């Protein structure tokens, strides 16, 4: 056969996947006896010789056949054996084409041709010819392609890896859309499925990696591996996405958001560092009270109503430096999931949202490192195998060092005497247990310190240690066990003469969770398990500071509570159009002794003066107990391929309160478990969402409405004194709350220019009620919560100049948060002038808006990941808006003036250099 015809057929063969008759032992051609005597010839010469001697035609690409096989000398052996021996040790294989032709090619390409009739090839070749080259889907062969007869089903076992790091990809998605089935990889990156033999289209997806489409040619049981490409190498990936592209429309969970670390890297960094909390603040329904505010608010909830988990450990303060950074080290985070609507029954203990941050395992195969150097902070992480392919380690360090910088400037007075820093360390050791098990030890520690002019300051620490065990018993049954312990502790000192003091407070916790995952079929995914949390409060303790302090040491009563939960949740795909997630959780909470509980005069406001007795509980004795059921329901209906409707309802309970009496939560707010005076919080969350994609999935839009009703809240009284108060129940009032709103999200997720806009209109209110003696705020009427910001707009755009240069812009607008403001001046004898404030939250500070830009140049597209680097230049608050953190009122002459405190009231340039190796 001449080269031209060979080339033509090779193109047809390799590009369009035609087909060929199946080879069977009875095929006359393959049984054709051959007289072979091939020595020192390459394959091309051998095939040419055979073509010349026998009625055979070979189709091939010449460059494949340059190899010389071992010498072959035989008489009368079948052509099949000749071909097998010639191609032994190569990547080549062959298939019969028609009655007299053999196509020689690479195994995968040839296998794709198997199982089809010549007629089907002829029938399909016209259509295939129309397909552009780029849409050709590579194939993967599973099992023995020569086995006959083919079994009806085959059990396939696969594994997904990061191609560069060779690390397994946990919780990656494997979907067979035509079969209507799929699964997730386990923590070892493995999955197992039983499929009909034949040709199936499959889609592999993992957060942060390019989606991969393949055709599986399943002949019999077999294994295969898939290497995914890290998206960092492809800057055309999505920036900030609600689940995968298009998944927000398809997933059954309303209001679930997954954030990839790639997304984070493209957002304008604050102070040169990317940050998870700052990223989720760009999502609709998520807000904060402003710069330098701890935590975040979701759909009108308090910051303590968010369950924040890191590697299964509870986090009680997710902020560094008052919220400029979060405690999550972006270099070690593998997955971030925010549940702000439907919360599956696997999660409990908070009524508003769940932020679940998972930490990656260290590499089992090679040592990797990553780090960044910035003006204010630097970080470094290293991970690698302890024992090749069996155990690994991960160690990450971060530190901010503004103190060092202050030494370079000519500052005096308060600035010179002020300091702020934070540092944290994360480690994880992972050991594989057999082929289907994994044991991890995780640890985290962080310290924050802030001092102002030696007059006052704070420090707060978080320590977590956790043991995680995962075991896969079969292709559809696995378990995960978490055992965690943690401590959050904070301290404030005040050097004010006469009242110089220190206050310490915090919360210890022990947490365990056993979760079973059972996937009996593609239609059902069951989660069931038990969870227990022991809250052991570090009592607020006030101590005098210095010899002239008049402060008398006070220590609040130590308090503790045990929360137990049992749950089951099924995600049920009823059909291609309707899916539901049904869950039920039962929780029991017990407030336990030892404790001395005050008894107050009936029908009188609680105060130190109305204490009429005390009741002492022994260690472990139950003081009060709550038993609650929590139904969780979410439903998704696909109206058509691009449109869906979602409904969800959750009832949630929470048995711990964060007591705060400042404009924004601070590190010295006090945690308090539920007891006879602090009720259990309860929220009923409703949401309704309409999702629509346009232009395929190029444009994704969603409109979600929500309503939340909250019971069992507490709010501080006017002039509540939380620190140094032994009977803290005297400082709060019972309250209820409600929040409602609509969230519109529009995202263009295609091409070099991407844009996402999130617009939220939402309200959040509180009302004091059921307080003894008629003690209420605002006459018992509804009033806006501290974080009620009706209008919230976040706009993020990204333009990719080249494959490795991205320019990002983000703009935020938010209604000013509510405050109380003076309405009158009271002149008291002899000449004291006191501002008389309005009832709570009747005014608002000025609206907040800000524009940030950043430019990122990523070298990794050009270089091996053995060492890649990235440079980011960003400008925070480009037009130097002096946003109000708070407004206060100060006497000026005869009256009072309103003064606005701005935290970052100017443009701030930042530069960082980050690297991976």
């Amino acid at each position, binding site marked *: 056969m001449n080269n031209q015809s060979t080339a033509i057929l090779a193109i047809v063969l390799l590009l369009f996947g035609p087909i060929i008759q199946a080879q069977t032992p009875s095929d006359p051609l393959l049984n054709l006896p051959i007289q072979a005597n091939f020595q020192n010839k390459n394959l091309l010469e051998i095939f040419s010789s055979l073509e010349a001697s026998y009625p055979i035609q070979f189709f091939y690409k010449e460059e494949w056949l340059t190899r010389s096989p071992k010498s072959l000398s035989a008489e009368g052996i079948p052509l099949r054996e000749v071909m097998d021996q010639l191609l032994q040790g190569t990547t080549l294989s062959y298939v019969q084409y028609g009655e007299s032709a053999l196509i020689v090619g690479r195994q995968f390409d040839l296998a794709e041709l198997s199982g089809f009739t010549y007629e089907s090839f002829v029938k399909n070749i016209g259509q295939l010819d129309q397909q552009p080259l780029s849409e050709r889907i590579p194939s993967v062969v599973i099992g023995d392609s020569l086995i006959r007869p083919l079994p009806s089903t085959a059990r396939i076992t696969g594994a997904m890896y990061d191609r560069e790091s060779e690390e397994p990809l946990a919780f990656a998605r494997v979907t067979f859309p035509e079969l209507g089935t799929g699964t997730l990889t386990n923590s070892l990156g493995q999955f197992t499925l039983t499929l009909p033999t034949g040709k199936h289209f499959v889609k592999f997806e993992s957060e942060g990696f390019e989606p991969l489409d393949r055709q599986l040619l399943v002949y019999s049981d077999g294994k295969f591996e898939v290497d995914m490409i890290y998206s960092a190498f492809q800057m055309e990936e999505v920036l900030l996405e609600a689940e995968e592209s298009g998944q927000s429309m398809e997933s059954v969970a309303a209001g679930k958001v997954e954030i990839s670390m790639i997304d984070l890297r493209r957002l304008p960094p604050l102070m040169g560092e990317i940050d998870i909390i700052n990223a989720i603040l760009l999502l609709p329904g998520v807000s904060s009270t402003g710069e330098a505010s701890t935590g975040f608010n979701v759909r009108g909830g308090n910051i303590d109503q968010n369950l924040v988990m890191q590697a299964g450990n509870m986090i009680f303060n997710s902020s560094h430096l008052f919220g400029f950074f979060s405690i999550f080290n972006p270099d070690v985070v593998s997955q971030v999931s925010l549940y702000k609507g439907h919360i599956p029954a696997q999660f409990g203990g908070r009524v508003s949202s769940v932020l679940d941050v998972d930490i990656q395992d260290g590499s089992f195969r090679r040592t990797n490192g990553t780090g960044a150097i910035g003006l204010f902070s630097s970080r470094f992480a290293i991970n690698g195998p302890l024992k090749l392919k069996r155990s690994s380690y991960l160690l990450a360090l971060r530190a901010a060092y503004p103190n060092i910088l202050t030494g370079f400037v000519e500052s005096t007075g308060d600035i010179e005497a002020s*300091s702020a820093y934070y540092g944290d360390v994360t480690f994880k050791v992972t050991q594989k247990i057999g082929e289907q098990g994994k044991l991890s030890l995780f640890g985290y520690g962080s310290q924050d310190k802030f001092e102002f002019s030696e007059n006052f300051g704070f420090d707060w620490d978080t320590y977590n240690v956790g043991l995680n065990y995962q075991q896969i018993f079969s292709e559809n049954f696995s378990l995960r066990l978490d055992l965690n312990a943690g401590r959050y502790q904070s301290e404030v000192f005040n050097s004010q003469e*006469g009242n110089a003091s220190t206050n310490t407070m915090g919360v210890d916790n022990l947490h365990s969770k056993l979760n079973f995952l059972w996937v009996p079929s593609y239609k059902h995914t069951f989660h069931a398990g038990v969870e227990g949390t022991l809250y052991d409060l570090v009592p607020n303790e006030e101590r005098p500071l210095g010899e002239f302090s008049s402060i008398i040491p006070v220590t609040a009563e130590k308090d503790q509570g045990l929360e137990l939960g049992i749950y089951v949740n099924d995600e049920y795909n009823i059909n291609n159009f309707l899916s539901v997630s049904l869950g039920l959780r039962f929780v029991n909470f017990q407030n336990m002794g030892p404790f001395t509980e005050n008894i107050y005069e009936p029908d009188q406001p609680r105060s130190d003066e109305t204490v009429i007795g005390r009741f002492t509980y022994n260690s472990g004795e139950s003081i009060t107990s709550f038993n609650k059921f929590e139904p969780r329901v979410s439903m998704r209906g696909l109206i058509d391929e691009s449109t869906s409707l979602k409904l969800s309802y959750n009832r949630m309970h929470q048995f711990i309160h964060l007591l705060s009496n400042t404009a924004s939560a601070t590190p010295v707010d006090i945690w308090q478990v539920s007891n006879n005076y602090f009720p259990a919080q309860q929220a009923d969350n409703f949401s309704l969402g309409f999702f629509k994609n346009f232009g395929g999935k190029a444009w994704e839009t969603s409109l979600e409405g929500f309503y939340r009703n909250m019971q069992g809240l507490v709010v501080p009284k006017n*002039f509540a004194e939380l620190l140094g108060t032994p009977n803290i129940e005297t400082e709060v009032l019972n309250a209820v709350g409600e929040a409602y709103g609509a969230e519109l999200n529009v995202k263009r997720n295609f091409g070099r220019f991407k844009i996402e806009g999130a617009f939220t209109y939402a309200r959040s209110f509180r009302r004091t009620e059921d307080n003894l003696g008629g003690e209420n705020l605002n006459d018992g009427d509804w009033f806006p919560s501290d974080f009620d910001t009706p209008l919230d707009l976040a706009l993020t755009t990204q333009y990719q100049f080249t494959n490795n240069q991205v320019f990002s812009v983000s703009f935020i607008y938010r209604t000013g948060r509510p405050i109380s*403001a*003076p309405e009158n001046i*009271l*002149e008291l004898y002899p000449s004291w002038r006191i501002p008389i404030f309005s009832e709570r939250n009747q005014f608002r500070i000025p609206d907040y808006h800000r524009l940030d830009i950043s430019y990122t140049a990523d070298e990794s597209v050009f270089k091996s990941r053995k060492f890649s680097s990235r440079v980011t230049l960003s400008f925070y608050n480009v037009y130097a808006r002096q946003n109000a953190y708070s407004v206060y009122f100060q006497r000026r002459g005869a*009256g009072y003036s309103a*003064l606005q405190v701005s935290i970052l009231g*100017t443009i701030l340039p930042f530069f960082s250099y980050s690297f991976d190796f």
Partner: protein
Amino acid sequence: MKKLFVLGIIPFVFWGCITEIDFDLQGESRIVIDGVISNSPGERFIRIRRTSGFDSLYSPVQATGRILRNGDVWQELFSPAAGTLALRSDALIQAGNTYQLEVETEEGNSYRSEAQMVQPPFRVDSLSFDIVPAELRDNNGNTRFSRLVRFFAHLDIPIEGRSELYFKWQFNNIYAFQDRRPITCYLQDPLTRFPATLIRGRDLQPGNVRVFLASTELNRNFLIRYNVNTELHMVDLPTFNFYENATRLVSNQGTLFDELPGLLEGNVKQVGEDEESIVLGFVEFSLADTARLPINRSDFTFQLQDNCETATCPPAAPDGSPSPCACADCGDFFGRETEIPPSYW
């Protein structure tokens, strides 16, 4: 690069960026009823006024009133001036009794204060002072090193019942003798810890204790003689809470960590059908013990320097506010000087 560093440091100086903004502070007009009734000569007045929103212009309200003792009318008040009611000088309140104020305004509204149990006076054993170095900050954030004079009271705190003691210290009639010959005078020192020093008995250890009261900068007022005059009022809990909350409102600087301000409710309510929701002010009935501490030049172990010998101060502002001069003379500082010695001098 240095500028870059400076920009970066700004976030850590949280109140470094403070600007005045327009804010609609116009509130409703409210009735204000306040005053202190004690047995001290200067504390026997009740004021009845009306605010006109936030501009702090008070207009006096004509009214009649009386004081109830243990629920019965005890003394009718007389009106020495518009908007003022006074108690006769020979009517002395007594510990152990409850007192209330009743007022009727010319507008036809009636008001009544909550009943207060007058607490017995608490004896101040003595006052003392010491001097410590300090770094002081002016309104612009600049700092300078100076010395503070700290004043202390010495009390004998009982073991039993101390948690029911509420101390309210006032500093009245503090004078410094100033020799700016040919002018000499007694200059009133604006030592105004607002509204007073407040201490809960439960926060003090039983026995003899030294309680920090206040401090002031060691300045030229101490060159010759300085006289601290304190009054210790024993008040009940609601009164204590009112002053404590007022102190918080005044000292609120709007920083990240200041407590949320709240509505400061007084102890006077409108009575009758046409109830006004909020009445501003507070009426206090209390007894006080007075303690004085003279401080003479000879009490210092070092030589105080008068740096104002050659200082030239700018004139007062057109609105009459004092010039920002630390070397003010007797005749041009606040108008609080007198050539007549205070009665206790």
